[in-house]
């Protein structure tokens, strides 16, 4: 088991090492094989580890990392059902995306660097998933941030891409500050930084420290998962290659934030305030991003905002106390969002790097396979009853609705509204891209052939996107809630929500109706049939659309309030304070001495009379002092 876990974590690292050391000297094929097989190997290890998880949670130390005083950091894993499921998902999606990338990066010269980062990313993500020691987890946490930075800016020759990477790194690191502080707090409170230790001793926390810790963790998660107010980096992150967007900015890394909250849920659970904060942040982000997604023109940006929105649901679930709901939503989101991104990647590739959805249109006939794949993703994202997406979202909404705290009803309403918007933009995307009138540019252009490896890898994802949710089919509908049962052992979780069937039915019905209504509206507005009248009613004015398109001008706000003053102050600090005031003071005081010197040298007049006078004056002063002394003492 130890070996399995070791390989699970470190196989991708080995791949990464291979790429960086030998990648430039071996053929492309070798690099591709090593990259894919290391991740695939990791997937099989995850699978076999899952099968071997019978004996309960397992803590394995690989390496004593560093020690000083009473502090110990180790490279170790804490393998429990939650991390097992997560690891399985991560390795599975990663493996598929690696394979997809082989096709996607076929024409790129810098493939070795690409696969280095990609493999390294998988390693770091697995560390986040499995680590027991929080410092080790932090390694993964920062590591994925770095990989994300490097991969967003992978095509560094365009400065905009590199800038997007920088922005992502920066904003996620703002969150990491809270992680670091949380580390400190945990260390002080528990004297250990082990997740297994912390979760088992969480009940010893006082309410105040639990709240502080919970809020710190929330802030850390907000940074990683691009929630309000640190959302602005994720849409820009779409500058990276599409597989990267799919893997890092949809399926895995961005979920690390919410995963952290799940992993340390017993701590969060100790604080009512922290839970509420998590829920509120989640709902707000979900609603905000759904609005923004409605107005986007760039296919990947729609999906990016959608990711933010869906992550909001996961936060909401954690805030409502339903870790299992959040986890299962996370899983199914990973599948359909990866699917959507990858399919979008196919579209983009086919249309010669075209991103604007209004320049696409009518692709159903020309890319039928991609259309069906995309459709599967949209159905699941739009939570159309009968898909996995619906089942998972339903569980969250039930949990929120039935939360004992009354204010959660408001959150539920907001969530339902968001749900409406979600389905609307999902179908908008589908209709505009695949069913709408074909865009001008697309008409004339040849469709760029898509490598088969790209589309074929998507079928398993499509299957899982549609049906993974059934693993958690509630008992009301005859399900067994298998996943919930499996995750039941995770500390702090509530495997089965014991709710009256009436409420369950009510929530499910309202949700379903909302989704179908939204889909219908989308058909009316963006469907193949022109309907100017409806559009005039429902599509808001240009200013509102711009407002949504720019993500509520949040980006511009931060630029104006934070980034630009910071730059400006840096210059002022440097030129005015450091070189001006500080150094200037010292320079001035050092200049006074030569000045004094040139005054004093006037004393040496060169004339003997002055010199002789010096003798007399000196004598007089000496005698004068002596006389004073004489009579004084």
């Amino acid at each position, binding site marked *: 088991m130890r070996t399995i876990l070791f390989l699970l974590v470190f196989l991708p690292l080995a791949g990464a090492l291979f790429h960086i050391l030998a990648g430039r000297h071996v053929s492309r094929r070798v690099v591709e094989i090593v990259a894919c097989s290391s991740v695939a190997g990791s997937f099989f290890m995850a699978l076999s580890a899952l099968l071997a998880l019978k004996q309960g949670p397992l803590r394995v130390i690989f390496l004593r990392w560093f020690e000083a005083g009473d502090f110990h950091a180790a490279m170790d894993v804490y393998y429990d059902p939650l991390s097992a499921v997560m690891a399985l998902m991560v390795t599975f999606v990663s493996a598929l995306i690696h394979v997809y990338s082989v096709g996607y990066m076929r024409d790129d010269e810098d493939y070795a660097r690409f696969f280095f980062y990609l493999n390294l990313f998988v390693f770091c993500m697995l560390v986040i998933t499995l680590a027991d020691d929080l*410092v080790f987890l932090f390694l993964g946490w920062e590591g994925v941030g770095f990989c994300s930075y490097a991969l967003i800016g992978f095509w560094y020759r365009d400065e905009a891409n590199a800038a997007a990477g920088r922005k992502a790194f920066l904003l996620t690191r703002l969150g990491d500050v809270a992680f*670091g502080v949380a580390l400190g707090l945990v260390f002080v409170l528990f004297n250990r930084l082990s997740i297994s230790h912390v979760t088992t001793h969480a009940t010893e926390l006082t309410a105040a420290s639990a709240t502080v810790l919970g809020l710190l963790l929330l802030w850390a998660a907000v940074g990683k998962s691009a929630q309000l107010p640190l959302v602005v980096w994720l849409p820009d992150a779409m500058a990276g290659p599409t597989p990267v967007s799919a893997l890092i900015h949809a399926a895995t890394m961005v979920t690390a934030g919410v995963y952290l909250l799940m992993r340390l849920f017993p701590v969060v659970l100790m604080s009512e305030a922290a839970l509420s904060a998590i829920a509120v942040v989640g709902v707000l982000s979900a609603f905000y991003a759904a609005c923004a997604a409605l107005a986007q023109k760039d296919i990947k940006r729609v999906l990016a905002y959608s990711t933010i929105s869906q992550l909001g649901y996961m936060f909401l679930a954690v805030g409502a106390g339903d870790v299992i709901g959040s986890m299962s939503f996370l899983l199914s989101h990973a599948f359909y969002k990866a699917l959507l991104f990858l399919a979008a990647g196919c579209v983009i590739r086919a249309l010669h790097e075209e991103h604007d959805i209004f320049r696409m249109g009518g692709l159903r006939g020309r890319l039928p396979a991609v259309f069906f794949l995309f459709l599967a993703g949209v159905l699941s994202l739009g939570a159309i009853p009968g898909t996995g997406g619906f089942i998972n979202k339903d569980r969250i909404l039930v949990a929120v609705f039935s939360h004992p705290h009354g204010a959660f009803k408001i959150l539920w309403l907001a969530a339902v509204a968001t749900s409406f918007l979600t389905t609307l933009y999902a179908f908008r995307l589908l209709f505009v891209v695949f069913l709408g009138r074909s865009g001008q540019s697309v008409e004339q252009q040849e469709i760029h052939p898509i490598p088969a490896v790209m589309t074929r890898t998507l079928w398993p994802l499509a299957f899982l996107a549609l049906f993974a949710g059934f693993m958690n089919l509630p008992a009301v509908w005859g399900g067994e809630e298998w996943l919930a049962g499996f995750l039941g052992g995770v500390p702090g979780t509530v495997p089965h929500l014991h709710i009256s069937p009436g409420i369950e039915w009510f929530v499910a019905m309202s949700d379903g109706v909302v989704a179908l209504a939204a889909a219908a509206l989308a058909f009316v507005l963006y469907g193949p049939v022109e309907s100017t009248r409806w559009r005039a009613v429902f599509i808001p004015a240009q200013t509102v659309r711009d407002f949504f398109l720019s993500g509520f001008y949040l980006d511009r706000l931060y630029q104006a309030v934070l980034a630009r003053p910071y730059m400006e102050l840096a210059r002022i600090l440097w030129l005015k304070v450091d070189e001006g005031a500080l150094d200037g003071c010292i320079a001035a005081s050092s200049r006074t001495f030569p000045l004094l010197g040139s005054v004093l040298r006037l004393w040496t007049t060169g004339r003997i009379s002055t010199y002789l006078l010096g003798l007399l004056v000196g004598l007089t002063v000496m005698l004068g002092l002596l006389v004073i002394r004489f009579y004084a003492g």
Partner: protein
Amino acid sequence: MIPANLLSLIIFLPLLGGLVVLAFRRHPNPCRWISLGTASMDLFLILSVYLLEIRVHQAGDWLIVEDTSWIETLGIRYSLGLDGISLLLIMLTSFLGIIVILVSWTQVTSRVALFHFFLLSMQTGVLGVFLATDLFLFYLFWELQVVPMFFIIGIWGHEKRIHAAVKFVLFSITGSLLMLAALIGIVVVHGSQTGHYSFSLFDLVGTSLSSNLENWFFAAFLLAFAVKTPLFPVHTWLPDAHTEAPTAGSVILAGLLLKTGTYAILRFAFPLFPSAAGVAVPVLMVLGLSGVFYASWIALAQKDMKRLVAYSSIGHMGLIIVGVAAWNAMTLSGSVLQMINHGLTTSALFILVGMLDERVNSRQLSDYGGIWRKMPVFSGFFLLFCMSSLGLPGLNNFVGEILILLGTFKVQPAAAVIGFMGMVLVLIYVLRLIQDAFFGEPRTDWNVRDITGREALILVPFALLVILIGLYPHPFLDLVDGPVRNLVLETGTAMNTGAM
């Protein structure tokens, strides 16, 4: 098994080599080879100490001591001592000693013999500082290291070199002369109390001073060390010195000279004046953290790459000061390790900037851009060291920083929180550096080749060490563990009683 005056040999071997080099005034290549040989021999000696001695003693107290009479009339002895902390630092010293010779191999072409003489004598000075346990001897080495640096900056530097060199010396001297007064002061007080005039650190520790006097003495010591460290706000010599110095000078400055400042605080200022130090802890923390913020902030606005790295240096050293001020086993270990880390990372960055300068003859960021395309391997190294500089886990700086910050959190949570925030500021300027220099399209048309074999030989050890310390710092931390425990035990308690 170990010769009686091994430590002296370690200290003075480079100087000896330097004198030999002077004889080859007209033959640059023999100069380089002799210097390289001397420096390697020194490293070999130190490593053999490490390998032999550590097994025997398991990093307890003082591993090797040397004590001979020197100036009897004043009670000054020639006494050297090696413990884990100094061992670690002299390893760094001799390692960088070799590196600077390699770095200057093609960069320095005029007055080669003199240059190597100064490099090697510089090394002697720094080694002496790390090994001296007699206060006078320490002071001698402390001043001694200034002189070669003055010439290295002043002769082989860039345009405003003389100004920078003079500024450097004046700052150093100002601090150290005041320290001299305090140093004599404590010896005199100790002598009048015990009748035994001694400059030995071991004798002087525990001298009971009136709190007023102790505060003054501590302030004087601290000023000298703070200037060298450099601690905000007495740092303004550093950007000039770094910008004007040749690469080797910058490496020595950042890698070694700055370390002597923090080392001396740890070895001398705190143990000698514990209760004054206890009082000064908040001040030090505030200054250290201000340094982190202030320097990191300013670094963002820099146009000159060397200046940028110089300011980053100030920020990193500020964090080390925070660690020293917190004075517990974690933070001290972290600080010592961080000295090594900073020595490696910042030196590597200076070397890289120097290599660019050598190729393009410019240090202005605006002249670069798109380097990655032209020099991928070089850029990879650069990225690695930048990531190390911003404390990416898995690389060396992280270990030191996390130890310092977590350890500080136990004592002074607010300071630790601010320290964590500082890490964002570091990120901002590092990313800007990478972005402006390496990404985008080249702004000027220059044609260069990627790194040469010699350059790879320089960079690979750095890279390996950066990763090794990041992933498995045990060999380093174990060395520090024992001495740090002693320091905490002896000085820590006295600090607390003083603070109360």
